[in-house]
């Protein structure tokens, strides 16, 4: 009888693992994604219920309170969050997951030093690893959240001897780990190691610029999985190890995809402090902009160009999302289609602030996703496009990425709007993009600038198109 319960718990974990795998698989296809998410949630429910049956779990009242509080906060966050803030939301949830894994390790350490006389080496090693990954995920995610929320400046923060200091901390951590293995009951060393992990998380994210923060969120998502796995090693629990490994692997793949879209390597993103080099290249660009002319048009002229075109490709950027202009953009597209214009949307892989973010934002505005085209599919079509309408996008349409080898964004795949017959760029002013690089596109003879906030400009365009 005493064997029956542990066996059924293990079998439940196995079922939950299988459900996680099936759920992730189904999340990968538009038709089954919602079902996949539900299957994952069912897997989680099974895992939690099975754990509550464990004979070590007796503290039901307090656990019920904890789950109720967590569920309420989680549900409120999920329903209140704006779709533009999705990267922050994922970042924050990552941090909570990482913190939970670290807390598991700290709690286990505390239990072990008070109940076990001879602590096995592997127990100490797994606890230290779990603290490290969980701690880095926690503070790193919170800082990434703060950067995206603009609570702290998005620009890379660097200071003198940054790399040597980081290295020194890592070495201190390793030495401390060695001491803890030799002396596994010492809470002081343990506290120092915990503190160092938390500091490392902050130092890890500090030098990464605003434009690269989505990559970091994606990487930290992977870390939060690894942290759960590490906690699984501490408790010798297979469901934690499996689920954590699945998330760890998927996070790495998404991170890799994002890096490829920006033509950067992960190492480059993490250690180059990208945006901070902008002053050097930016100044020379500004110097020679004076003798170049910019053609500016008003909404009425813009509406004429759009209304009498045969095909229009809309290139939405994060500026459009910030201005909450996606609904106005869809109205414009509807009006144009009424006039018989063919409207498509070109989505750059890093449009928005996380992979696939722009698709979600447009979906929120009910844009049919059959009208959304990936970069590789739309680029050959620009030559046959009458008007390319760029709304709040900048770096992803900068031809310098193809032509100017000295540009910091050289080599990044772009949407080739300069091949369209005409380009209309809606923008507040002539400021540089997220990367801090001047955009030659604005000075081309085929480019018309429509100055104004994205939402106002689009609303005016809609009004003018209606009168055509």
């Amino acid at each position, binding site marked *: 009888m005493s064997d029956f319960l542990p066996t059924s718990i293990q079998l439940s974990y196995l079922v939950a693992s299988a459900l996680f795998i099936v759920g992730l698989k189904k999340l990968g296809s538009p038709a089954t994604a919602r079902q996949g998410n539900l299957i994952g949630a069912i897997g989680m429910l099974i895992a939690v219920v099975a754990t509550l049956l464990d004979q070590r779990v007796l503290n039901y009242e307090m656990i019920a309170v904890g789950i109720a509080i967590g569920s309420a906060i989680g549900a409120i966050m*999920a329903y209140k969050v704006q779709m533009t803030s999705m990267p922050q939301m994922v970042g924050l*949830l990552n941090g909570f*997951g990482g913190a*939970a894994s670290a807390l598991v390790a700290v709690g*286990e350490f505390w239990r072990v030093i008070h109940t076990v006389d001879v602590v096995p080496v592997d127990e100490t090693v797994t606890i230290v690893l779990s603290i490290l990954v969980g701690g880095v995920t926690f503070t790193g995610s919170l800082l990434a959240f703060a950067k995206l929320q603009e609570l702290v400046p998005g620009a890379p923060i660097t200071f003198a001897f940054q790399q040597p200091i980081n290295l020194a901390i890592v070495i201190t951590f390793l030495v401390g780990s060695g001491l803890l293995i030799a002396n596994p009951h010492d809470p002081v060393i343990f506290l120092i190691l915990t503190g160092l992990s938390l500091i490392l998380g902050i130092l890890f994210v500090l030098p990464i610029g605003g434009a690269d923060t989505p990559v970091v969120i994606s990487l930290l998502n992977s870390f939060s999985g690894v942290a759960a796995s590490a906690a699984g090693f501490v408790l010798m629990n297979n469901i934690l190890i499996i689920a954590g*490994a699945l998330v760890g692997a998927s996070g790495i793949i998404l991170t890799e995809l994002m890096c490829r879209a920006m033509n950067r390597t992960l190492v480059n993103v993490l250690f180059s402090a990208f945006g901070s080099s902008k002053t050097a290249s930016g100044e020379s660009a500004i110097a020679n902009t004076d003798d170049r002319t910019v053609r500016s048009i008003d909404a009425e002229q813009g509406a004429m160009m759009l209304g009498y075109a045969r095909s229009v490709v809309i290139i939405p950027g994060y500026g459009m999302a910030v201005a909450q202009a996606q609904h106005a953009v869809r109205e414009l597209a509807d009006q144009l289609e009424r006039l018989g214009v063919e409207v498509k949307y070109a989505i750059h892989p890093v449009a928005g602030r996380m992979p696939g973010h722009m698709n979600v934002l447009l979906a929120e505005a009910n844009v049919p996703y059959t009208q959304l085209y990936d970069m590789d599919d739309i680029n050959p079509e620009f030559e046959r496009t009458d008007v390319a309408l760029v709304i709040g996008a900048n770096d992803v349409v900068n031809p310098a990425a193809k032509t100017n080898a000295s540009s910091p964004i050289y080599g990044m795949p772009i949407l080739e709007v300069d091949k369209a017959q005409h380009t209309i760029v809606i923008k507040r002013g002539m400021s540089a993009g997220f990367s801090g690089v001047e955009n030659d596109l604005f000075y081309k003879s085929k480019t018309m600038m429509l100055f104004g906030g994205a939402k106002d400009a689009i609303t005016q365009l809609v009004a003018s198109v209606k009168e055509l």
Partner: protein
Amino acid sequence: MVDGIIAGLVVFTLASFVGFEVINKIPPTLHTPLMSGSNAISGIAVVGALLVAGERSWNLTVILGLLGVILATINVVGGFLVTDRMLQMFKKKEVKT
């Protein structure tokens, strides 16, 4: 105990490969929901927190465990619900077109 670590490593490595295989070739439209959905799964730490918080007495381990339960539950519930909210928007359109 070392046997346990080895068994754990085997499970970890195989599960990682499954993760790589399952996630490959995802259309960009689904990257954001996939990230928040997998993020919710990483809230599996809640199981660990439950085990740590399970003892029926008050000590530091239990308090830390309960804190872990709260944080991990936020991660799980928030993650799955927000993913569903996003995917619902995709769904709505599919019916239309």
